[in-house]
């Protein structure tokens, strides 16, 4: 039997190929501060999915319409080490989407207090660069990357800035974080709702909805993929995301 058929067959009985429940995450392992050269960093493993987020603080020019605020930039690289299908070169469509979904979860929840990152109004502000580096891809990159990004931001320190230069390795403060969005991607296969698909399951997914949930249960960003969903699907998927976000938030 084809692997895909096998997965679907099991799902009919509400079973998954690795024995998990439909709403169960794989084992999550977290390492913080793994990159000393970065101002913040974290590694998140969800099962065999392995993601590093690194934060670099750089001096930037603010956007003209927010001259007093730091800027946030998020980039994701599907490093070719991580999967036989990943190739060197500029970010693919999927890598671009990943970066933008991670970025929106952080940005729209007002997680970082950007207004505290101004150095000289209209001229110099701190730029917070989130870089997502995929080490091994076994599904659910969005949740793993979002979690890694938030954890990395939470341990990010602001370097000393003196005589128009960043003094690397000396820090003056922690990056001010005021909200903690957790991203949960709920997937629909055969009218069932699952979380944390592995790569094989992703191959048979019908649709998915990625939802960033804040600690106050406000939803801060959503991204749908795959085929159509009806209103009831959305309803149930949001419920499940909120529920799972509470579990994941305990890892922070």
């Amino acid at each position, binding site marked *: 039997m084809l692997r895909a058929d096998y997965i679907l067959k099991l799902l009919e009985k509400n079973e998954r190929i690795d024995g998990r429940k439909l709403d169960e995450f794989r084992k999550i392992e977290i390492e913080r501060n793994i990159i000393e050269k970065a101002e913040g960093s974290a590694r998140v493993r969800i099962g065999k999915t392995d993601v590093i987020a690194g934060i670099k603080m750089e001096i930037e020019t603010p956007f003209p319409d927010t001259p007093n605020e730091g800027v946030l930039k998020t980039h994701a690289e599907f490093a070719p080490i991580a999967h036989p299908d990943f190739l060197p070169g500029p970010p693919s469509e999927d890598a671009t989407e990943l970066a933008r979904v991670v970025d929106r979860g952080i940005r729209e929840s007002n997680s970082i207090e950007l207004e505290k990152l101004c150095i000289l109004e209209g001229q110099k502000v701190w730029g917070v660069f989130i870089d997502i580096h995929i080490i091994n891809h076994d599904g659910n990159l969005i949740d793993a990357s979002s979690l890694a990004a938030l954890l990395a931001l939470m341990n990010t320190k602001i370097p000393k800035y003196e005589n128009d230069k960043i003094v690397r390795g000396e820090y003056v403060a922690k990056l001010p974080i005021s909200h903690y969005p957790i991203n949960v991607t709920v997937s629909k296969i055969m009218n069932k709702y699952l979380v944390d698909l592995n790569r094989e399951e992703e191959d048979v997914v019908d649709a998915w909805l990625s939802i960033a949930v804040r600690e106050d249960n406000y939803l801060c960003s*959503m991204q749908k993929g795959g085929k*159509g969903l009806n209103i009831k699907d959305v309803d149930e998927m*949001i419920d499940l995301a909120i529920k799972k976000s509470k579990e994941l938030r305990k890892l922070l």
Partner: protein
Amino acid sequence: MGKIKGIELLKNGKRLDGRMPLEMREIEMKVGVIPNANGSAMVRFGKTIAVAAVYGPRLLLPKHLQENDRAVVQCRYNMAPFSTDERVKPGPTRREIEISKVIRQAVEPVLFLENYPKTTIDIFIEILQADGSTRVTSINATSLALADAGVPMKDLVVALSGGKINGTLILDLNGLEDNNSEADMPVAFTANKKEITLLQMDGELTKEEIKKLLKEIFTAGEKIYQMQIKALKDRYSE
């Protein structure tokens, strides 16, 4: 990009352009605007103007991109350089790459891709003017362009944005509202089956607000659907 501090988007229950919260802007739809294309349409929501063209199904080259059991849909959403306040530099931005992907996924579910193996259906969208809600405007234009191209479709796709300003839920955000809203939620759905094919959200909404907004979008979407039907009829009765 950023938000204007302390802007009041709602005064005496009305939006800055005079609309009521759930009121849409003036909508214009025209099918068959590009003679060379297999199908095409222009859709305007207020000042936002999108033109979509469909080429195909046509043989996809180079060969290694072909799928043996279905057509590939390729989609490019592009902002004309003069479409915004500040000139848009040519070349795809990350935002445009993402929007191209979600628009593609918004229309793929209504197509019979398995009927056209080894081919591509190319969807090209040009934003001639951008004043908010460009992706939903583009999806309406794409739905019409696909129908105009004679590509068999299970349903038309209707799209509309919802959002929240000053705590009030609104429909069809313009550019100013888009940049300064508390939340922005573009949605696309199949007109008859009501299958949601695009759903994105930015901002802060409770679950209840999302449900309410979806309901309003479905209701107002019916009007958009009727306009799509009319635009197609106008085309064939030309």
